[in-house]
């Protein structure tokens, strides 16, 4: 869900004319900009915000302001607000990130932060990001984001935090490095001189030095206390009596003073302050609605309160929105709680109604939930869910609202119940989702259409109710696929298509993609291809490019299984064109490059393959789908196999296996089988055999699309073993298995598999000495593979294949193609591993940077190319210099060349 940015949170509260100037503190903040972080950490009422706004007004550096509230604990929302705040001083910053934040699925946070910091690093001027009231956030994720920012921020940026408790940041480390400036309670307290200036000059009192000292001592320089005391004195008849009783009392300072201040206000002002204290933000019209008091204009009262210095903080320049100082607001709310004559729930309901009328549904829901007016809240939550469901995906906020409703509220609300089902599905709560979908379904049954039953039904969004059968069917298809129930997925998916109109792109797109995955899993490749194409089409129409592109991988994989290598390349290239025409980096671009790299490897265009894989790796962290790394490791492993670097290939496959998690996307080439293939190439037949044994694979195993590759690998193990030891053992069984595999693949038009199986059949007959049949088999494979440009599928089979191809060439079988394949056996492609004659070898990343340096790129260009902060590049450079024992770039390049590292 895209975040609606409230401008009031970005508004720097103006520095009031009446404040005490505090040059000793302002100077410290200015000096602190040498470091990374300024922390203003003190209890409520110590003038933290006032100090910082005073510093901003003094105006040495542009400052971006963000007033935090509890809702900002959501990382995506927090980030959206940080960017919006930065844009108030640097409008060009972060436009790309904003659009990324609005496009589901949200990209990984770290890549967004890196991208943001890189943009800041290019700014011509410095800026300070002020996070006000950081203590309201209670989120480890936000703490981690902040730690990342502090660690990586470019020199242009400085962070200033005001808070009531120290944030969970590595403060000790920052302190030790002199990168932290702290202003704490002891610094912020008014000194006796400041107290005198405040009371007598700013608040216009005429107190004796003794009185000032007495007040300063009683409040211990606590500014909120002194301000309330001053207001009390302003409205009191007898100053010395007030001071005497205040300083003589043991009462909690604020409790005492707020009582005093309120008691001196006219009744309608007291009433106003108490009742409006329930609001996080206040404006005249909203207060009118909450108070229902025709006798007084809220706008006038607000003006009066502002002039009386009663802790009212403006949130805009128009004097429209305000809030109470949080501390004062708390004290007012405590008093409201005790005002027995006031119906607080009724106030919340009025606020909820006003917000609803002004299209601020989230706030409306908030107040309805506090008032425990669950019916009202349920209606609004239903409308909000239905509104966002048709255009985007669910948010955690909706989950929280729905969880706040009693279970009984869902019973007779079919739309809301289905909505809860969907939201729960998105957060992986399968069982609870099922319960709520069942409840919604009850209301669609024929017996639920009887008049007396219908009268119990509650629906806030009639259109959503009309669409309910399709909404539920889509959820059911999703649920079934998550449970691995293919027939049910297909049944429900078809139902969605039957029930929705052609313009309901969201439901249709989702259903089509689910149907595509289901047909793919059950090996109906052509149907799967058609559904995924439809799903992609619908998502494009909806404008959701990332989700449209996520179908690409299925489409390309299917074409590959069908032996249509060129089509698969075309699919990736088209998708890449769409992705690159977007104004921002689309999630999944890294996966497109990886797919292209892998297919070029198959065609033995290793240079292009390397280039694409390199691009994929560079972009992976920031623009890869969630399982990008898993698939990248597999593609990279195949590349390492080509160059004979089996150790690295195995390492990559092990990493892929560690990171792998099951998704509804079929996985026809399991990682363990790929590893067995590496063992075969290495000659570690025993290991490969024990894998097959553990997997329970046998020559009689039933064949399905999903275990086909494992069975092909089993055959390959035995053929290779036979080639090695020439012991005629289970040859007939292998031949029969390959025959069955061949028939199954041919029947389902999996021509990619037919090529691979024919090659193995050829090898088997060849080693048995049956050359004519072997070449017939090989010819079948060559005939299918030539037009598509396959190379590695032959070459990776090893030296027996080279011999067979030579024989084929002698017999004049497809001479151009066989010549090309034989040439690919040249060992030239097997690059020796670079050995580093260094005490401390350079890391992959350092080698990468060194190559870019050698290519003549500046640090700035390298940071942009690799999507890392400029400072990170500089850090790498230092390490490189140190390891090579040189002092500058040119020397580093020369030394690296000398050592054969680049």
């Amino acid at each position, binding site marked *: 869900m895209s975040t609606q940015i409230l401008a009031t949170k970005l508004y720097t509260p103006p520095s009031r004319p009446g404040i005490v100037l505090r040059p000793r503190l302002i100077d410290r903040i200015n000096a602190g900009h040498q470091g990374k972080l300024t922390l203003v950490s003190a209890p409520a009422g110590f003038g933290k915000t006032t100090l910082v706004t005073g510093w901003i007004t003094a105006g040495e550096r542009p400052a971006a302001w963000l007033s935090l509230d509890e809702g900002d604990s959501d990382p995506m929302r927090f980030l959206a607000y940080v960017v919006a705040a930065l844009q108030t001083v640097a409008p060009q910053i972060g436009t790309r990130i904003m659009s990324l934040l609005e496009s589901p699925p949200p990209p990984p946070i770290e890549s967004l932060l890196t991208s943001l910091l890189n943009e800041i690093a290019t700014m011509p001027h410095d800026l300070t990001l002020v996070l006000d009231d950081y*203590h309201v956030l209670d989120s480890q994720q936000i703490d981690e984001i902040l730690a990342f920012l502090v660690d990586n921020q470019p020199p242009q940026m400085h962070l200033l935090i005001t808070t009531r408790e120290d944030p969970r940041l590595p403060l000790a480390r920052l302190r030790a490095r002199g990168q932290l400036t702290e202003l704490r309670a002891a610094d912020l307290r008014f000194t006796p001189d400041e107290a005198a200036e405040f009371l007598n000059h700013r608040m216009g009192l005429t107190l004796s030095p003794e009185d000032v000292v007495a007040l300063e001592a009683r409040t211990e320089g606590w500014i909120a206390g002194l301000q309330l005391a001053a207001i009390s004195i302003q409205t009191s008849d007898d100053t010395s009596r007030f001071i005497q009783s205040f300083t003589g*009392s*043991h009462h*909690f300072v604020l409790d005492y003073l707020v009582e005093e201040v309120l008691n001196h206000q006219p009744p309608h002002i007291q009433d106003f302050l108490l009742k409006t204290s329930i609001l996080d933000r206040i404006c005249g019209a909203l207060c009118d609605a909450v108070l229902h008091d025709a006798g007084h204009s809220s706008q006038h009262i607000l003006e009066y309160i502002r002039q009386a210095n009663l802790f009212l903080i403006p949130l805009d320049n128009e004097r429209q929105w305000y809030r109470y100082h949080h501390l004062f607001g708390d004290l007012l709310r405590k008093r409201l*709680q005790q005002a027995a004559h006031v119906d607080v729930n009724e106030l919340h309901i009025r606020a909820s109604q006003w917000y609803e009328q002004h299209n601020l549904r989230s706030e409306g829901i908030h107040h309805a939930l506090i008032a425990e007016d669950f019916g009202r809240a349920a209606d609004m939550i239903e409308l909000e869910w239905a509104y966002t469901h048709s255009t985007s995906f669910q948010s955690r906020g909706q989950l929280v609202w729905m969880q706040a409703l009693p279970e009984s509220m869902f019973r007779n609300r079919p739309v809301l119940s289905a909505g809860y089902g969907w939201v729960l599905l998105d957060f992986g709560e399968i069982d609870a989702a099922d319960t709520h979908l069942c409840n919604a379904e009850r209301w669609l049954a024929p017996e639920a259409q009887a008049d007396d039953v219908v009268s119990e039904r509650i629906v806030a969004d009639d259109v959503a109710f009309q669409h309910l059968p399709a909404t539920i069917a889509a959820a059911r298809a999703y649920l079934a696929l998550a449970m691995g129930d293919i027939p049910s997925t297909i049944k429900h998916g078809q139902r969605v298509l039957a029930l929705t109109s052609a313009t309901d792109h969201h439901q249709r797109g989702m259903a089509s993609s689910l149907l595509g995955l289901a047909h793919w899993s059950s090996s109906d490749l052509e149907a799967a291809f058609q559904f995924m194409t439809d799903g992609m089409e619908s998502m494009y129409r909806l404008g959701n490019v990332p989700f449209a592109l996520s179908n690409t991988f299925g489409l390309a994989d299917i074409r590959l299984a069908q032996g249509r290598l060129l089509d698969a390349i075309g699919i990736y290239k088209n998708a890449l064109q769409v992705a690159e025409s977007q104004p921002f980096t689309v999630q999944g671009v890294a996966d497109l490059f990886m797919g292209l790299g892998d297919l070029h490897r198959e065609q033995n265009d290793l240079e292009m393959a390397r280039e694409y894989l390199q691009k994929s790796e560079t972009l992976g962290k920031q623009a890869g789908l969630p399982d990008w790394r898993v698939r990248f490791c597999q593609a990279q492993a195949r590349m390492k196999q080509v160059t004979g670097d089996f150790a690295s290939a195995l390492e990559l496959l092990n990493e892929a296996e560690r990171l792998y998690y099951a998704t509804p996307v079929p996985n026809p080439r399991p990682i363990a089988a790929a590893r067995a293939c590496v063992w075969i190439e290495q000659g570690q037949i025993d290991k490969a055999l024990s894998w097959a044994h553990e997997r329970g694979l046998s020559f009689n195993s039933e064949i399905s699309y999903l275990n086909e590759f494992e069975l092909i690998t089993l055959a390959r193990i035995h053929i290779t073993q036979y080639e090695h030891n020439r012991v005629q053992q289970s040859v007939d069984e292998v031949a029969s298995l390959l025959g069955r595999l061949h028939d199954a693949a041919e029947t389902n038009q999996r021509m990619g598999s037919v090529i691979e199986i024919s090659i193995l059949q050829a090898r088997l007959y060849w080693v048995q000495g049956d050359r004519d049949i072997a070449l017939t088999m090989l010819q079948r494979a060559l005939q299918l593979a030539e037009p598509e440009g396959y190379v590695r599928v032959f070459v990776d089979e090893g030296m027996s294949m080279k011999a067979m191809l030579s024989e084929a060439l002698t017999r004049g079988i497809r001479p151009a193609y066989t010549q090309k394949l034989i040439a690919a056996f040249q060992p030239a492609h097997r690059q020796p591993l670079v050995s580093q004659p260094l005490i401390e070898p350079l890391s992959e990343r350092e080698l990468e940077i060194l190559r870019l340096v050698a290519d003549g790129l500046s640090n700035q260009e390298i940071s942009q190319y690799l999507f890392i902060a400029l400072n990170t590049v500089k850090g790498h450079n230092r390490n490189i210099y140190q390891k090579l024992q040189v002092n500058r770039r040119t020397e580093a390049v020369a030394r690296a060349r000398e050592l054969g590292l680049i």
Partner: protein
Amino acid sequence: MSEARTPGPDQPLIYQVRIKGHLDDDWNDWFGGVSITPEADGTTLLTCHVADQAALHGLLRQIRDLGMPLISVNQIEP
């Protein structure tokens, strides 16, 4: 120490929180049911039954948000 006297990690606990300054009884509701005892030395003792550690931290946060100086927190025997 016998087992019966060792409260489990999730047992309801009784804490005494001492803060500086006197508070009236009417703060009872604000803190969600604590007993309030003003003491002669100008401090106030809040005695509260809390469900667990999280509830205790919630109470301390409320005290923090009012800017009340915290003097001590003690767990006491039921």
